[in-house]
């Protein structure tokens, strides 16, 4: 069913792609009704099972041994959900070596199998996640119904249990106040767009998560094709919104100044960094600055509060702002 006219995605604006599958084991009640004892048993069972997986080596992180700073940092990396770390007795994370593949145990469902990658790579991620899912399926019995598909805690995840998402950088649509219209129009075709990092204000990073809204009655390949099509359309709108913007010296000047601040700052708050990141990324996407964009995206994660706490003892916000500035300066100067 692979289309001949695959949508062309302007990959400059695509930050990362992500897929997760929601799965439950037939023999246990869902996590909210699962006793701590049964949850511990399940953690061990899945740990043993995934140790044997031939295509990836997983580190086993029992969340009861993970500090709140470590959990916060993993949340910023989108490896776990915010609540996952708070329920350590029941939860564990199996983390692949390159952090591409991971499995959350006892989040809202017994298994949340995830795959993540930079740029636009949904098909590749699905191939990898599907392979892992097949392997687990060969060892356990999943809760499944012919009518509803994979049975999940929340009925919004029924069907394939897939949630595919793409993170986009959309500064021009944001600046022109067009995002609300985009969000509304794609919601009509079963796609959800969510702003991350304080959208709606001028101080945002202009990052948006685009994902499928439901997974019942639509196959995995259809979901990915739909998402790719919508992502291509949104990127096209962003491109149009950027047209004729950069011959204007004032507009270019704003971006170069942002780069200047990042190279020379001595104090940098989280909010200011997000805004400057967006402007410098835009300059790189438009070819005004020669920058390694994936490295900039990695820096964005490293500069989040918990990730900064992870690499130093600076507890006060002032110290963190200072360390953020030092880190950014070093990277920007190469």
């Amino acid at each position, binding site marked *: 069913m692979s289309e001949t006219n695959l949508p062309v995605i302007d990959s400059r604006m695509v930050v990362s792609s992500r897929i997760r599958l929601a799965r439950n084991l037939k023999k246990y009640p869902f996590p909210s009704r699962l006793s701590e004892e049964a949850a511990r048993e399940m953690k061990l069972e899945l740990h043993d099972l995934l140790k044997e997986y031939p295509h990836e080596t997983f580190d086993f992180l029992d969340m009861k041994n993970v500090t709140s700073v470590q959990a916060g940092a993993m949340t910023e990396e989108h490896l776990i959900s915010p609540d996952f770390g708070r329920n350590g007795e029941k939860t564990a994370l199996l983390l692949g070596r390159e952090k591409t593949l991971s499995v959350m145990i006892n989040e809202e469902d017994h298994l949340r199998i995830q795959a993540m990658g930079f740029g636009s790579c949904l098909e590749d991620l699905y191939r990898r996640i599907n392979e892992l899912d097949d392997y687990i399926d060969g060892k356990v019995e999943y809760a499944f119904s*012919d009518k509803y598909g994979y049975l*999940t805690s929340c009925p*919004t995840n029924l069907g394939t249990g897939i949630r595919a998402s793409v993170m986009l950088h959309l500064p021009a649509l944001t600046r022109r106040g067009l995002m609300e219209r985009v969000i509304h129009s794609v919601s009509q075709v079963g796609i959800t767009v969510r702003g991350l990092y304080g959208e709606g204000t001028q101080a945002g990073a202009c990052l948006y998560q685009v994902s499928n809204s439901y997974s019942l009655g639509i196959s995995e390949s259809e979901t990915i094709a739909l998402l790719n099509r919508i992502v291509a359309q949104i990127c096209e709108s962003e491109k149009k919104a950027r047209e004729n913007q950069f011959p204007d010296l004032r507009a270019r000047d704003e971006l170069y100044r942002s780069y200047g601040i990042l190279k020379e700052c001595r104090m940098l708050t989280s909010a200011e960094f997000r805004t400057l990141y967006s402007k410098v990324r835009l300059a790189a996407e438009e070819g005004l600055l020669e920058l390694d964009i994936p490295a900039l995206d990695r820096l964005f994660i490293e500069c989040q509060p918990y990730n900064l706490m992870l690499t130093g003892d600076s507890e006060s916000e002032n110290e963190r702002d200072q360390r953020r500035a030092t880190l950014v300066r070093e990277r920007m100067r190469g």
Partner: protein
Amino acid sequence: MLCENCKKNTATTYFKQTVNGKTREVFLCSECAAKLGLGDSFSNFGNFGFGLSAMSDLLGAFSAPASAKCPTCGITLNEVSRSGTMGCADCYDTFRDYLRRLLPRISGNKIHNGKVPHAAEKNEEKEIPALKKRLEEAIKTENFEEATVLRDKIRELEAKKNSEGGDAK
């Protein structure tokens, strides 16, 4: 008139709701009305899962009382509708009436289309008769949208069977 819930006391409370041109009416005694959260005060409605109005939820789920419990995990319909989450795989059978009304609001009246786990794959032989049984049930309960989907699925499978060994999935 007797209360439609306990079938013992005299009904004193009447609720009526029209959805898509279909009107549903419920007659309750004051005790059952209070138990179902339809008493004097509407303050205890809280936030029902998925932003459904409490009224349509209760009327929708009326064939199973709010205190209905899943025999496997013990969760009640009340808890399910409040949290929006199921307690175990068997809840999908226990609370099927609730789901029948809830799911169209999330994903339309659809049935699964996509990957099937190994354990379920082995049943493929039995799939057509099982679907036919569900089709009959859907027609009986006047769930015509689901019936249409099931009919198409049966046709698709029969065509596949006739053309012998089509591609998997």
